């Protein structure tokens, strides 16, 4: 790889041991990719989470954050002191809700360690956004900005909806990017790789939250990690639809970028999205594909007795929180069912002050932040059957927890929370 003088100085230790280890990792990573050089990034979203048992293993003391940073954010066997972030850096979703940790089964000591880690890395520049949706809480890179983001649902939003440029980075690469302001120049940093290769013709109306999720889940399996342009949509999507769509597409497949002509910023029309080339494949999304996505998502669930309803994956917008509060107003959830509603801690504050939290809590639900059951594996005690309005959660929870999971609309899920029974059907 070709390095600039500044990068070479960092690699050689002229900017300290941490940056030397970071550059060593970035060079190994760039060579693995076949990249020729690095690119400057100005926005990093990763994880400095320090409370999971894996990360805590083999430490002299649980708050040895420099050791955790060295091992897991730099892939370094040499222990280094954690320097300040060199560029804007935020923490994504993590394992422990600092307000509701007892519901998640965590101890006071674990919550205290979480808060201590937030203070440690916060002083070094890490913004504890603590959400899978940093773009919902003010972290909105501009079109063309080079970023290094983790979180597949955030990456696909960043590339497709915002027009900023990132690959799906990992814990180690974002750790290195944060303190060097560099990432390999590869993949979606390069303009020609951002063009669509697959054409998807949509033959049915898609204009509801659940339908955007189903379409995303179907397209992920059709396109895998490639870039599609989606033609034939008739209604302008809401941001929350695209959040749901991208998360689903990045779960069943590996979609990191898509185009919707006239909606997303890098596609005036289909030909523009394709960069003037013919598509390598053309797919159709119609009623059959929609039903297949529904059936795939629900294929592992057999018991209609729902113990646990999980809403808010990716984390809910304020608008989604208001819709949930509206559906729960004056009602009570089943004594046999737990309801957890997830939203970023910043939006929870908004919901607290707007009264939505109180409505959800009066109905028997809990407003959670910072994490989700797929991330921390925390479920209410005795949970065997889950219901969720998230394709991503329905995709991952059975594999991660071994539990049955139903997928449906928000209305299906609220009905399940109230009755304790799953009766969702695809209309």
């Amino acid at each position: 790889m070709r390095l600039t003088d500044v990068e070479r100085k960092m690699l050689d230790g002229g900017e300290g041991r941490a940056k030397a280890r970071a550059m060593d990792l970035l060079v190994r990573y760039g060579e693995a990719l076949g990249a020729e050089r690095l690119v400057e990034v100005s926005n990093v979203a990763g994880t400095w989470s320090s409370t999971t048992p894996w990360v805590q293993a083999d430490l002299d003391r649980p708050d040895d954050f420099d050791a955790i940073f060295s091992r897991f954010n730099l892939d370094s066997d040499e222990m280094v002191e954690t320097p300040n972030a060199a560029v804007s850096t935020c923490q994504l979703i993590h394992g422990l809700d600092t307000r509701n940790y007892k519901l998640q089964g965590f101890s006071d000591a674990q919550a205290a360690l979480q808060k201590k880690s937030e203070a440690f890395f916060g002083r070094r520049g890490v913004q504890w956004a603590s959400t899978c949706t940093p773009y919902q809480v003010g972290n909105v890179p501009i079109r063309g900005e080079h970023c290094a983001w983790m979180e597949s649902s955030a990456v696909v939003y960043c590339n497709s909806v915002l027009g900023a440029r990132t690959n799906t980075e990992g814990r180690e690469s974002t750790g290195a990017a944060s303190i060097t302001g560099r990432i390999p120049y590869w993949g979606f940093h390069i303009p020609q790789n951002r063009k669509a290769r697959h054409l998807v013709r949509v033959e049915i109306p898609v204009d509801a939250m659940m339908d955007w999720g189903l379409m995303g889940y179907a397209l992920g399996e059709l396109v895998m990690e490639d870039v599609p342009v989606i033609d034939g949509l008739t209604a302008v999507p809401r941001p929350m639809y695209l959040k749901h769509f991208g998360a689903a597409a990045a779960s069943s497949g590996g979609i990191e970028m898509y185009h919707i002509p006239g909606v997303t910023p890098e596609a005036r029309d289909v030909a523009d999205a394709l960069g003037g080339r013919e598509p390598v494949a053309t797919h159709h999304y119609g009623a059959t594909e929609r039903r297949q996505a529904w059936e795939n998502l629900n294929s592992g669930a057999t018991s209609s007795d729902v113990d646990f309803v999980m809403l808010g994956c990716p984390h809910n917008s304020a608008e989604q929180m208001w819709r949930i509060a509206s559906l729960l107003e004056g009602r009570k959830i089943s004594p046999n069912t737990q309801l957890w509603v997830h939203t970023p801690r910043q939006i929870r504050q908004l919901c607290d002050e707007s009264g939505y939290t109180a409505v959800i809590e009066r109905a028997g639900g809990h407003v959670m932040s910072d994490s989700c059951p797929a991330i921390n594996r925390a479920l209410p005690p005795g949970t065997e059957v889950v219901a969720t309005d998230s394709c991503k959660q329905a995709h991952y929870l059975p594999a991660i927890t071994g539990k049955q999971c139903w997928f449906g609309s928000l209305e299906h899920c609220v009905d399940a929370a109230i009755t304790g029974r799953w009766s969702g059907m695809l209309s």
Partner: protein
Amino acid sequence: MTDTVDKLVLRGRRVVGGIAEGEAFVTKETISGWGGIDANTGTVTERRHEKVGRSFAGKILVFQGAKGSSGWSHYFHMTRRLGSAPKAMLFTVTTAKVALGAVVTRVPSMTDFDGDPLSLIEDGDWVRVDADTGIVEVTKRRCGGI
């Protein structure tokens, strides 16, 4: 049965240097790291995956590549720390996830082959990976019983 041993050689690009050999664990599918494997045992856990319930620990992992969450590298990083990592990785589709995952798993890894490893290598074949010279030697598992 004859004593002839079927051998074949693939050439490809080094992703992570080093030499390793072992039994092949082959899937034409992609693998999810976070939410797709149990890092304690190296077992595939994705519900509808063709290898669900089977472990790649200590084997030569031959697969299409990575999919799903950006936790991919962290989960494969953990297989190294937990002793359940594959001995080497051979994959066909390069993504940031699989490249970083191979780097932090620190096992010999290769891609960009002159033949399709997903069809030429089968479960149980003996595979020697020399990522430094870019050569994979495959000794076919002999069929027809012992």
